[in-house]
């Protein structure tokens, strides 16, 4: 009932582990795959070994999750053992990656492509570094260049830029689609935001600020996905604050063909995927809905 396909990728359900959560190595990715996800995304792969930002890197309170992990990565050249470990993973594997220049995006993509991930998730949305991520996703022209460069080396693997939630996200999305993007994912974390510890008058996160995710930003995400669905002709993927079957269905009705769950693992554990899938199924049965496809964009 939940089975669907996305750009030709068969998914047992439309619920994907979002990039950067749990996806740091092959072992944990396989564990998430076994706990119900329809597909899993590897932690964004970088052009060089990178330690990321100092701790605290991840905090949460109420409906808010904040992180400034800062894209730690062993670098694409140090991932052979992980690729090896990922052989035989039971669900489609998506590869997220980032870089520090348009050329470097092609370089990293080129190194990833031979390992045949089901999808290239292009991280042009992370707000937690000064030199990578969102700086490539805020200007439609720059974003388009990244997509063009990646498409040149991606072969048959679909390319999906994952955008920052900027005011101009629709323009960026359109530029990416014009440059050949096969799908658009929205969104990376919001803001960034800041938390100050009043006793010490210091910013809590090691990076000073951090991208905001979790249920707090879900209504903001839903609105932008709703608009994206009308703005572009490629499938749209919703990411942001989804923690329940209701939330996933809401995002799908707004226009998403697939939804990703990240912070939901904090609220409901690693098996949030199985839980959300069960909730979706029970709602679909009650409401006599037979397939995900008939829900996509149905609130328009």
């Amino acid at each position, binding site marked *: 009932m939940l089975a669907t396909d996305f750009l030709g990728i068969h998914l047992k359900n439309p619920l994907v582990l979002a990039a*950067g*959560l*749990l*996806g*740091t*190595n*092959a*072992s*944990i*990715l*396989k*564990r*998430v795959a076994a706990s119900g996800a329809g597909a899993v995304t590897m*932690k964004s792969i970088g052009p060089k*070994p*990178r*330690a*990321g930002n*100092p*701790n*605290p*890197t*991840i*905090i*949460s*309170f*109420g*409906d808010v999750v904040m*992180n400034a*992990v800062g894209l*730690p*990565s*062993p*670098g694409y050249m*140090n991932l052979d*053992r992980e690729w090896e*470990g990922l052989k035989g993973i039971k669900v489609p594997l998506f590869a997220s990656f980032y870089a520090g220049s348009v050329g470097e995006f092609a370089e990293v993509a080129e190194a990833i492509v031979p390992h045949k991930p089901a999808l290239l998730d292009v991280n042009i949305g992370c707000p937690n570094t000064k030199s990578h991520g969102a700086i490539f996703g805020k200007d439609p022209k720059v974003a388009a260049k990244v997509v063009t460069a990646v498409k040149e080396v991606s072969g048959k693997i679909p390319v999906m830029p994952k955008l920052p939630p900027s005011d101009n996200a629709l323009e960026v999305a359109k530029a990416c689609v014009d440059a050949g993007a096969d799908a658009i994912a929205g969104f990376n974390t919001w803001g960034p935001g800041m*938390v100050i*510890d009043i*006793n*010490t008058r*210091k910013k*809590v996160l*090691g990076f000073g600020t951090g991208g905001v995710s979790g249920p707090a930003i879900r209504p903001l995400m839903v609105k932008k996905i709703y608009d994206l669905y009308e703005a572009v002709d490629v499938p749209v993927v919703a990411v942001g604050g989804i923690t329940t079957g209701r939330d996933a269905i809401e995002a799908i009705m707004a226009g998403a063909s697939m939804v990703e769950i990240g*912070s939901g*693992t*904090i*609220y409901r554990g*690693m098996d949030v995927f199985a839980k959300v899938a069960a909730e979706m199924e029970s709602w679909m049965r009650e409401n006599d809905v037979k397939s995900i496809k008939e829900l996509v964009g149905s609130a328009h």
Partner: protein
Amino acid sequence: MPTNLPQTYRITDVIEQTPTVKTFEFAHELDFIPGQFVMVWVPGVDEIPVSLSGPSQITVKNVGEATAALHKLKKGNFIGIRGPYGNGFALPGYKVLIVGGGVGIAPMKALAQYGDKDFTSIIGAQTSDEIFFRNYFPGLHVCTDDGSEGEKAFTTVVADRLLGEQKFDAVAACGPEIMLKFLYQIADKHNVPMFFSMERWMKCGIGICGHCAIDPTGWRVCKDGPVADKAILENSEFFKYKRDMAGTEVKL
């Protein structure tokens, strides 16, 4: 709703345990299971995982930037605490052998003090100066590498002997990974269930970033651990390699 935000508490006391180890008491009492840890924020510097040595207490060895900065803090200064996190010691049976090496003595003190078992204890360090918390351990055997206190032997040697002499229901331990590596073999040989507090690089501390997940099971030291039993330890990356802050593998 889970709250995973460091709360800053004033340090109420700093106890110099050894030339390199200090205990920090803070103005807040946590409900914890021995073996659980907290993420300790040294404001403006770093946040690191540290086991609780008591409900309002951590005991930390000065080994690098964060721990050095922590060691500079005085009574009245603030430290940030979130947690407790992880599983803590859940031990079978009644007769338990405790083994603590180096600053690994700290969490074992919490177990010895608050655990409801018949404990025999071994604590060890390079020299007598680095032994601390002596009074908290029942049936104590002290070991030092240089023989300056107790037996001149590794804790593992004493453990091997005691496990040969008496029947224990479990071995609970914390210490350098190399010590635990040998202890694994010894406990295995004597066929005694083992529960070791393990370390891997931590970022979130709550099981969602994946950074501390080990091969090949994806067992997360922060959430599923830090206390690992034999099933987790055997055929795992433990004692062989770990991952650094970037996620790159580092041989042990």
